[in-house]
């Protein structure tokens, strides 16, 4: 589904964050991009989500070069959830979720609200519909942010450090929860939390200094890291 060819990214200060990277992310999996800080994993995520443009290399989504896709269809195909979540604080949970469908798909507000309620029910947080982001817990906010991304029914969701604000128990709940969602959407999860990667993902890769150290089945990758 996502295929990356010869990807390199260098920041303005000369730091080469990604060095000639090649990889394919298979469909129907939760894929974990692991690595320590500075390994280039967030830069890679920003390239895939088109927030930054690499100096070299190509990224394909189902054989389409993402930098040649029109912005709207690209954003509808790939959803992003940020580490800081960035829920809109002046809107209720429901409004956060209906904004994009209303504006992008021109769906009327009532239908959008109905499908947002369905989504919230599936995510198990229907009771939060009329709450403001400041009134929900970290774990709940995480689900709202993912739900907001899922409203456009993307083919792929990118999650950046989804567990960084969660405690151990919520992390466990979260990995179970995301595995249940995986049936209709694929996830690429950037994380430094190896335990979370083990329980949530089926495949993954480990990056260091802009290069892939190991990739494949999650157990194999984790074994390799522990050995290394």
């Amino acid at each position, binding site marked *: 589904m996502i295929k990356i060819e010869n990807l390199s990214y260098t920041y303005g200060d000369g730091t080469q964050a990604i060095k000639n990277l090649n990889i394919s992310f298979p469909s129907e999996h939760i894929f974990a991009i692991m690595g320590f800080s500075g390994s280039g994993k967030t830069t890679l995520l920003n390239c895939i*989500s088109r*927030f930054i443009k690499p100096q070299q290399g190509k990224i394909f989504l189902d054989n389409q070069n993402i930098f040649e896709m029109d*912005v*709207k269809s*690209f*954003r*509808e195909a790939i*959803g*992003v959830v*940020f580490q*800081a*979540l*960035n*829920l*809109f*604080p*002046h809107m209720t949970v429901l409004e956060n979720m209906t*904004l*994009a469908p209303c*504006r*992008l798909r021109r769906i009327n507000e009532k239908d959008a609200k109905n499908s947002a309620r369905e989504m919230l029910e599936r995510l198990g947080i229907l009771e939060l519909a009329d*709450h*403001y*982001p*400041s*009134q929900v817990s970290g774990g709940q906010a995480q689900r709202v942010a993912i739900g*907001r*991304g899922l409203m*456009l029914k993307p083919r792929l969701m990118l999650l950046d450090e989804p567990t960084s604000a969660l405690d151990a128990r919520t992390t466990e709940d979260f990995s179970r929860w995301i595995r249940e969602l995986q049936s209709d959407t694929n996830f690429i999860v950037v994380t430094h939390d190896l335990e979370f990667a083990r329980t949530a993902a089926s495949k993954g890769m480990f990056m260091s200094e802009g290069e892939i150290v190991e990739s494949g089945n999650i157990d194999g990758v984790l074994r390799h890291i522990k050995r290394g």
Partner: protein
Amino acid sequence: MCFIMSMKRLKVPVLLMSMVCAITLSATSDEFVTALTGKFPPFNYYNEGGDLAGFDVDVSREIAKRLKKELRIVTTEWDGIIAGLLAGKYDAIVASMAITPERKQSVNFSEPYYRSGAQMFVHRDNPNHIYSIDECSGLRIAVVLGETYQQFLEKNYPDIEVVTLKSTVSIFEMMEQQRIAGFVTDRLVGLWQIKNAGRSFVPVGEMLYTESIGIPVRKDSNKLLKQINRSISDMKVDGTMDKIYQKYFGTVGVAEGESAVGGMTFSIIANKLLKGFAITLLIAFLAISLGFLFSIPTGLLLVYNSGFWALPSRIIRMFVDFIRGTPVLIQLLFVWLGLGLKAFPAAIITLGICAMCYMAEAVRAGLISVAPGQALAARALGLSSFDRFRFVIWPQAFRIALPSLMNNVVALIKDTALVSIISIPELIREAQSIISVTFEPHKYYLIAALMFFAVTFPLMKLSGRIERAIQAKGFKHD
């Protein structure tokens, strides 16, 4: 949503702007436009009916009749009355202006239409035992700011401490408090004012000098000057001038018949104050609406200052700093006299630009307080740049900016008091014209202040309530 509300409001200022444009249009060729202060009874003042009256007004009317033109009288501050003539705001000044060499450098005077003289007055008790101006060394003697008596005293009596005050009203107050030993003013005017205000001041000594009162016109108005001179000499010959003089200063007819000067009735006063305040609020409303409308793009330009927008942003930054760093009063005078705009448009445009600059800073502060992740998240959801601003950035920025925007609104309403200087009949000016007849500054300035407060106080309370409402709604800005 707040943003949508503010979008709906946009139509109102646009409509009102076109009204303002309509006000600016006025015919001039068939009009004889003269200026006076309206605060110099019995020469020019507001009568019991709230209309302009007095010696100067009657003379203006008579001249206009002889010129076969429609008379329009502009009331303006004495301080800037010549500047207004030079800027073409009116054709002539018929305001009891003495002919002096200094004034002759910038304007041409008609033949004198009356002569008067400078007289010193002291308190009847005469605590300083003064019987002539020569005995006033080291004493404080007051004159009204901008009148010729000031230069005369400073030149001929350097030992006198000359105190310049804004009006006769303040001179009288200072006299009662014995903060000045006496004052110098026109003999006729002084006598009338003292009698009218029921004060115990008396003239002492000879007149200091006599002076000729003429009508100044611009130096390029030779034709008009000739016509005015002919009218004046005709009026002197056919007895019209004498009739007007008798009406105000003659011994016959002052006590009975049409009372030339006097107090105002309560309903006239209330009417003047309310009308003035309505104008104040209209100007404030238009300026604030205009300012708010333009403060949004201006605030945006101040924030987004890279790439193509770098240069415009820099220019706007300079402009905003300049406006914020200079007195509104100077800006008003510059636009009115310097650029030659009519008073109303000058007031609305100047205050509007001020509002824009001050509010743009509030908008800018609001915009930069919105977390950068918000725009990124909106982008990730595929929203267009306009939608990102409209639904995500602006509502948050507006909420953050709201308290300081409200402060700006309150400050702007108060700033409208300044437009009295450019001859707009708003609250302060109306209050002054009432005071020039009633001699009760304490009462009418207090009333004017309370009228302002009646509007600004609820606004200040509202600001606090909105702030709390935003917080209660769960939106907090960290």
